[in-house]
């Protein structure tokens, strides 16, 4: 079959590899009908995440048709079922899964020891996302083996297009959880850094959950135009002072809730001198991430407010104003998304027409064009916001 494989920084290739096979009775094999490139994939593409090996199949946003089911998954799945696969692999039985903390499932990471060395404890296995999270082959491919398939799936009823439901596997619940973690009240201003796909979903989620005011921060006019369409007031951080504007819009008190949907690759520019220093430190391995957005949120957030961090961080960050966090009594909530915790509810909202997440798609191409699309998406060329690949 054809699959997109990582070969190093900026080097993704579409290559022929052996088809996956059932390896365990709880496995299923999925024939992929649609998959997408995520901002998280860019962290691999730019080689900021450790733990990739040459030849790894990437991709963690995918859906398709079940073509083979292992003995122990047969009670839950049958050949022909149409499923979206969550990017977090879940067992459904461990302590964490029982609490709905699916992204920290204790069983599905087959490199649990490696993960525990890096993070103190293991987290869930993920598709196509480094050997720290199990080294499972990803979904930018024609076929995928889904481990723990009896739990790791979202069944899709007829009558919905791939485009409407594909994002249930990652970015829609990610934006949703980002907003839910803010525990939004009708008086709240929610400020959202990053108007990429995750930011766009967070903007709409915050609106639907009743925020008084949603503010989106980015520098790309096309992304800001899409943010505005979702009801956000926009700030272009290359043209205006983020802190000044946020204070202006909140009578000098700052936003109650702040969401970081940027993560470890904050834009490097003279306007944000700290990012120049972070970039230099990254080069000489003194720091792994560029936490500009975290610093800004901690500084501008209203006392007793909440910071919600769906943006991915990989390791160590410097110059974090923790004094501001402590003295202002801020709450920080973060994590990879507990996808299946939200998907029944979100699927219903899509079916009822409350939201159609396909609005974010700007490019749809064949899998073979995947490598060039990584470049287009990374460089924000051609108005690219979200790429869907059709194997």
């Amino acid at each position, binding site marked *: 079959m054809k699959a997109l494989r990582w070969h190093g920084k900026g080097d993704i290739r579409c290559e022929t590899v052996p088809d996956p096979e059932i390896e365990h009775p709880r496995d299923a094999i999925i024939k992929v009908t649609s998959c997408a490139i995520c901002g998280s994939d860019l962290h691999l593409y730019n080689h900021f995440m450790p733990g990739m090996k040459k030849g790894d199949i990437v991709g963690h946003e995918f859906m398709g048709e079940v073509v083979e089911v292992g003995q122990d998954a047969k009670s839950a799945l049958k050949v022909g079922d149409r499923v979206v696969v969550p990017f977090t692999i879940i067992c459904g039985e461990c302590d964490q899964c029982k*609490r*709905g903390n699916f992204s920290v499932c204790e069983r599905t990471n087959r490199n649990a020891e490696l993960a525990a060395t890096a993070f103190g404890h293991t987290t869930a296995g993920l598709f196509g996302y480094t050997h720290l999270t199990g080294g499972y082959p990803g979904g930018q491919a024609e076929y995928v083996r889904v481990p723990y398939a009896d739990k790791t799936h979202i069944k899709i009823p007829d009558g919905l297009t791939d485009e409407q439901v594909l994002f249930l596997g990652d970015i829609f619940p990610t934006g949703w959880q980002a907003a*839910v*973690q*803010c*525990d939004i*009240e*009708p*008086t*709240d201003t929610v400020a959202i850094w990053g108007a990429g796909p995750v930011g*766009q979903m967070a903007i*709409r989620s915050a*609106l*639907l*959950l*009743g*925020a008084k005011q949603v503010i989106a921060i980015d*520098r*790309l*006019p*096309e*992304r800001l*135009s*899409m943010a*505005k*369409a*979702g*009801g956000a007031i926009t700030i272009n951080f*290359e*043209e*205006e*002072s983020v*802190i*000044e*504007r946020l204070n*202006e819009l909140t009578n000098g008190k700052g936003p*109650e809730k702040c969401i970081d949907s940027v993560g470890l690759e904050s834009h490097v*520019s*003279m*306007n944000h*001198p700290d990012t120049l220093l972070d970039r230099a430190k990254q080069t000489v391995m003194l720091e792994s991430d560029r936490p500009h957005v975290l610093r800004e949120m901690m500084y501008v957030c209203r006392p*007793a407010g*909440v910071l919600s961090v769906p943006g991915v961080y990989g390791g160590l960050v410097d110059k974090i104003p923790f004094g501001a966090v402590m003295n202002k*009594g801020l*709450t920080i*909530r973060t994590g990879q998304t507990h996808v299946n*915790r939200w998907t029944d*509810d979100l699927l219903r*909202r899509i079916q009822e*027409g*409350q*939201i*159609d*997440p*396909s*609005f*974010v798609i*700007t490019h749809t191409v064949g899998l073979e064009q995947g490598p060039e699309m990584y470049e287009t998406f990374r460089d924000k060329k*051609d*108005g690219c916001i979200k790429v869907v690949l059709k194997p």
Partner: protein
Amino acid sequence: MAHHRNRRSAQMSRESADALARGLGWFSIALGAVEVFGGKGVARWLGMEQNEKLLRAYGVREIMTGVGILASRDPTPWIWGRVAGDALDLATLGKGLADPNAERDRVIMATGAVAGVTVLDIICANALTGQPPQSRQLRWDYSDRSGLPKPAMQMRGAASDFQAPRDMRIPDALRPYTQPQGNEFPRPSM
């Protein structure tokens, strides 16, 4: 409001750019002095003896730009002058690379150093000119892509049937805004 929105970010970059410019000014003077007074030695070290005169001339150029940067109120044109000068230096060193008599390793080292300074010069010049390096026009307009069935403002609160799970609610003590104060948590005494 529109005019003062720009103030903070523009001022910050202007300040750091000015500091960088001053640094580059002193660097110019120091480098120029070495080229003028030690021109012979530098040319010999590079194995490019025949370029000794040229090197001294470049040194004079460096000193002039350096003084220009430090003495003028607006160093912008002088920094752009440095960028142009870097291009000249790189071209000369490029010629040296092709020269079989030149000390290749040393020429490569010098080229690397000049390239590094060039990057700084360009960053500085850009910031001083006040143009964000990648400022972009709205070429792709997605203002019709809401993903919502009605105008956004009419969708506010449409999902308020959603109950935040207990583990994601903010601590009650930090909920001073609109929540009714029940008996199940300590009430603030006011």
